[in-house]
């Protein structure tokens, strides 16, 4: 029983890492713009596909570069290209609306539509056949007592933690991070301080999308079958996790992602697997009803 529990906890850590990485992107954009970027889950999907094409091109089924070299090239390239995709979305779809100062909900709907375009565009132009990601890493299984760990799972968990620490340092220790926090604090005072609002927003989208790209690579390495709708469900869930953590707060997204991962894995361990979403969402909803602002979120006061 105990070893089973430890094994489950380890799996939950890996599963929670994906949620956390995606939730961080949601939270960054929301914290700065007060915008739910519903296309974020699909940007994660785009990241996985970009990683697939780059690695397939370099690896050539073992004919090209070695696995390690491919990975070393794929990771930065994918992150750059995915963030380009995210920034493009912001430039062509969100920014004109923001300039017009329209109701926030219209921007959210636009984001939702952009997500649909990415999903179905992928389905229409790349076909419905699932792509299988090349094996870039040799699987090494470590047996620690009764618990088996693979090197990939450990890498995923460590990456998520490292990304969180780096991001936290970036937001709290650098000038750009300070500007980002300032934008979320008071958007109208920022231009008066000589800071370009658009530049900060582009940095935010770059960060969030590159994290989604990173998550896409790791996901494709762990579960090497890609399909156009892989980002949709994962994105929705990561978003809910971000909100339960307290959206707009980096710690909240990180903790929320792992919380959702734990709930899901432990539910599957205890109940039939069809109950997974039901129980996970019920718990999250209860949490939200108890704490309407999420775990780390601050209560918003309204001036009267």
């Amino acid at each position: 029983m105990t070893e089973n529990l430890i094994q489950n906890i380890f799996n939950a850590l890996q599963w929670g890492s994906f949620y956390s990485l995606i939730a961080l992107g949601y939270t960054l954009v929301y914290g700065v713009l007060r915008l739910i970027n519903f296309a974020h889950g699909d940007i994660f999907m785009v990241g996985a596909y970009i990683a697939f094409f780059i690695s397939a091109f370099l690896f050539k089924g073992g004919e090209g570069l070695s696995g390690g070299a491919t990975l070393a090239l794929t990771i930065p390239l994918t992150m750059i290209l995915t963030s380009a995709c995210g920034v493009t979305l912001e430039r062509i779809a969100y920014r004109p609306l923001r300039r017009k100062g329209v109701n926030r909900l219209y921007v959210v709907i636009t984001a939702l539509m952009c997500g649909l375009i990415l999903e179905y565009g992928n389905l229409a132009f790349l076909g419905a056949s699932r792509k299988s990601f090349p094996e870039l890493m040799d699987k090494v299984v470590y047996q620690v007592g009764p618990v088996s760990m693979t090197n990939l799972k450990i890498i995923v968990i460590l990456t998520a933690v490292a990304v969180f620490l780096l991001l936290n340092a970036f937001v709290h220790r650098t000038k750009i991070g300070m500007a980002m926090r300032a934008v979320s604090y008071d958007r109208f005072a920022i231009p008066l301080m000589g800071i370009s609002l658009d530049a900060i927003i582009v940095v935010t989208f770059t960060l969030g999308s590159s994290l989604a790209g990173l998550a896409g690579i790791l996901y494709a390495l762990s579960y090497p079958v890609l399909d156009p709708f892989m980002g949709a469900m994962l994105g929705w869930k990561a978003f809910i996790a971000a909100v339960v953590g307290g959206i707009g707060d980096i710690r909240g997204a990180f903790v929320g992602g792992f919380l959702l991962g734990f709930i899901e894995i432990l539910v599957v361990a205890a109940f039939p697997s069809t109950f997974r979403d039901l129980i996970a969402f019920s718990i999250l909803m209860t949490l939200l009803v108890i704490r309407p602002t999420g775990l780390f979120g601050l209560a918003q006061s309204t001036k009267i």
Partner: protein
Amino acid sequence: MKRFSVPALLLILAAGTVLAARFDLLDQYVQTIIMFIGINIILAASLNIINGYMGEFACGHAAFMAVGAYVSSVLNLVLFTNSPPLAGPFLPEALALFLFPVTLIAGGVVAALAGLMVAVPSFKTRDDYLAIITLAANFIVCNIFINLESLGGARGLMGMKKIVFFMSDAVDLPWMLIWVLIFTVLTVFIIRRFVTSTYGKGIIAICQDEVAAEIMSVNTDRMKVAAFMLSAFLAGIAGGLYAHILGYINPNSFGIMKSTECLVMVYLGGMASLSGSVLAAILFTLLIEGLRFVIPVLDSAIHLIPLVPDTYQLSQVVKWIIIPLLLVLLMQFRPEGIMGNRELADFLPRLRKYYKFK
């Protein structure tokens, strides 16, 4: 005279449609499109209460549709046929005609109770957090139906066509068309009366400024419950109609995608505009159906370009690229939707000469 002009017009249109359907002037396909337009009008208008008039962002409308669809289907199946979950039939088939609207409304009532699941948290939570709660509610409801093995689980529920046949056996008319028309008109009527009444204006007040509304003696909590329950009730009725038109439902057809369709219609028509919702629902349904015929034409058109390989086919999937793209473009040039907070009479003031609502 003015008071009867709109009802008379609607009656003539509806009677004309029904008679044309009865004497096979409209084929089955056109009838189905008309019915789907009706259902989409109900869905868009009912979601407009929350997303337009109340200014919240609810994105789990399909959940209530699912509740209504399942409840009315199960009631009808249990009462009039011998299919599971209970061995029936308990009532003679001829009664189906009279009890059908009752089961629809029962489905609506249960959906309204499910609406409480969203309404109660909405007392404390606002915009984005409420959006999450509605989203989670949608997932939860779908999963409940997937896990109910007695109702077919993920395989879905069948046999609602029998009820429609019982109705047309009793009196030979296109009954589903009649019910859809009746409930569509009823929905628009109820919502219009609701949001223009003194009581219903509380919802618009909440949208403008909740604190001020509270101070001006609008009971905001009760108002929110009323809005959510009315919206869910109407969605439940739409779900019941949908189930009996298709004759088959499964939990996955009421997922996020269906909710997204409802959202698209509301924002396409414009927030807080009833005529906008009606127009958008008509446009959206016609667009989805029309693209079926346009895509093959497009397919042959792009093959005229020498760069495109012959093996590449434009499939019906392209529909879901074109529709979001149109909406994104619309948002860029007209962010308030087609109508944007106004009704038809605000655009065509001369219409006012010909009708008068009470």
